[in-house]
């Protein structure tokens, strides 16, 4: 009886502590939302109060007035979607080549490719910038999308999946006279939906959050993505906190939906990425 009692107490302590930690984790987002609805003059002066003297919805309109925010959000959606689609396509084709086609040095090439998983992309930005400058492609969607669709993560993850699929389906289809493309499209892609989607989501998030490369290659507000747009709010003339937090809220909230809808896929992706790696 006392033992059960004690375990109940420890359960209560455990639950309350974790709930407290979770609340602390979410607090910055709550404060962001609250601040986005306060008049700028009250963002700091109202102390630790969640509400200002009025609901300042005008921060949101002000945010869209100070920067072409609608355009910036559309840019982010366009760049992230195209980037994700490109990454998914290229990764799928490479993964297929590295599993089901045979050619000399295949495994050596794959290991070399895999090595770039630990290469910091930051090392590449200066030669990439110089290259795009020579081609006259600075300030273009091409420059924002193209360079970062060829990493090894996607191909690696999809490859792990293909390796776990039995060859029988494909061989049966081949005997029936189906070509590679038909096999890939009708047999493999339906089976590979989950890992390809995971690659797409992760790639989307990477493009959505990318900051250093857009900062370097874009200096035209009409081509800015969200992180770059946020930087425009803290200019030399000081920070306009209310509108800035409105903009931050608008940039952060789409990510909430990504987590809510794709949580299990995301976890699967992280897990796969971790376990194939050794």
């Amino acid at each position, binding site marked *: 009886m006392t033992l059960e009692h004690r375990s109940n107490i420890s359960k209560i302590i455990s639950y309350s502590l974790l709930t407290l930690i979770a609340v602390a984790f979410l607090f910055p987002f709550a404060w962001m939302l609250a601040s986005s609805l306060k008049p700028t003059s009250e963002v700091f002066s109202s102390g630790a109060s969640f509400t200002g003297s009025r609901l300042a919805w005008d921060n949101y309109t002000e945010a869209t007035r100070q920067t072409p925010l609608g355009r910036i959000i559309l840019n982010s959606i366009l760049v992230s979607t195209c980037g994700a689609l490109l990454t998914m396509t290229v990764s799928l084709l490479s993964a297929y080549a590295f599993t089901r086609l045979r050619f000399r040095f295949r495994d050596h090439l794959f290991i070399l490719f895999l090595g770039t998983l630990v290469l910091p992309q930051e090392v*590449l930005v200066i030669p990439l910038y*110089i290259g795009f400058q020579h081609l006259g492609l600075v300030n273009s969607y091409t420059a924002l999308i193209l360079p970062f669709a060829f990493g090894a993560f996607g191909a690696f993850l999809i490859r792990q999946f293909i390796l776990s699929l039995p060859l029988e389906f494909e061989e049966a289809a081949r005997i029936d006279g189906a070509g590679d493309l038909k096999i890939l499209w009708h047999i493999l892609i339906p089976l590979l939906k989950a890992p390809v989607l995971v690659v797409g989501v992760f790639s989307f998030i990477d493009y959505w959050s990318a900051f250093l490369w857009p900062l370097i290659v874009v200096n035209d507000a009409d081509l800015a993505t*969200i*992180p770059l747009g946020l930087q425009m709010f803290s200019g030399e003339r000081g920070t306009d906190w209310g509108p800035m937090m409105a903009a931050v809220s608008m940039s952060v909230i789409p990510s909430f939906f990504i987590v809510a809808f794709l949580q299990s896929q995301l976890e699967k992706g992280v897990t796969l990425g*971790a376990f194939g790696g050794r």
Partner: protein
Amino acid sequence: MGAATITESHRGHGGLGSRLRIFAYLAPGMTGFLIFIVIPLVASLTISLFSWPLLGTSEFVGIDNYRRMFSGEDPAFYTILRNTVVFALLYTAANLIISTGISYWLQHLPNRFSRILRIIFFIPVVTPMAGNALIWRLLLNDDGVVNSALSSIGAPSLPWLNNPKLAMGSMVIMSLWQGLGYNIVVLTAGLNGINPSVLEASELDGATGLRRFFQVVFPILSPTFFFCTVMTVIGAFKVFAQPFFLTKGGPGESTNTIVLALYRNGFSFDKLGYASALAWVLFVIVMLLTALQFSQQKRWVNYDS
């Protein structure tokens, strides 16, 4: 590209058709790999041997960029190196300890509760770092909510972003908030892979608490933990958006990091050659640390269970 000679691609399919096919599947990925990864990597080393302005002509200077760094002629170099290493050490150690602790803790709770908590911890991982850092600048401002909470319990306000030591600490804490969720998910998957009967057996043997964790759980978790260590260290050395948005590298140079200095040298000070040399220093450090970790893994990573 390795596809030049083909032995046999599939039974009954050889010759020109199969070469074309291999080319068609392999070319998109490998052309991109060559153009956007391999060539820039080599080019980066080449550029680091030049004095290279954004506009105008570049001039070969040999190892002068590196000499300037290591001779101390650029006094910022050793500062940014030290800052980056300090950040990486503090961040990696704290991240691994806390995320392992939380994952192990969540493991003992009912599924639904722990699942919701993992989702909460994961949210900052997918929100843009730029937004996250700005939110923390709001929280840690001298008149921000953290300080007003402190003063409401009678504690003194602290200059979170305006004192060299505190600024580094703030950057680590903000980054932990952003990054813990990823490792929690990975480590949870590792813990889920542990056979429950092993844990029951250890319980019968009387192993409890910390002893059980270090003698039974951790050895089985070690491959996952190894993966987290490698990836977290690499991520930590690339720290950029946090100092850019939180502290602008200050106060003084106290939170300036390699990538922030790389960006400033290249695109504010017009020294792309010097910036490339910094990029190569980053690359070499990350490669050496990764190689070191892989070479040491036999000592503590346990793959046979």
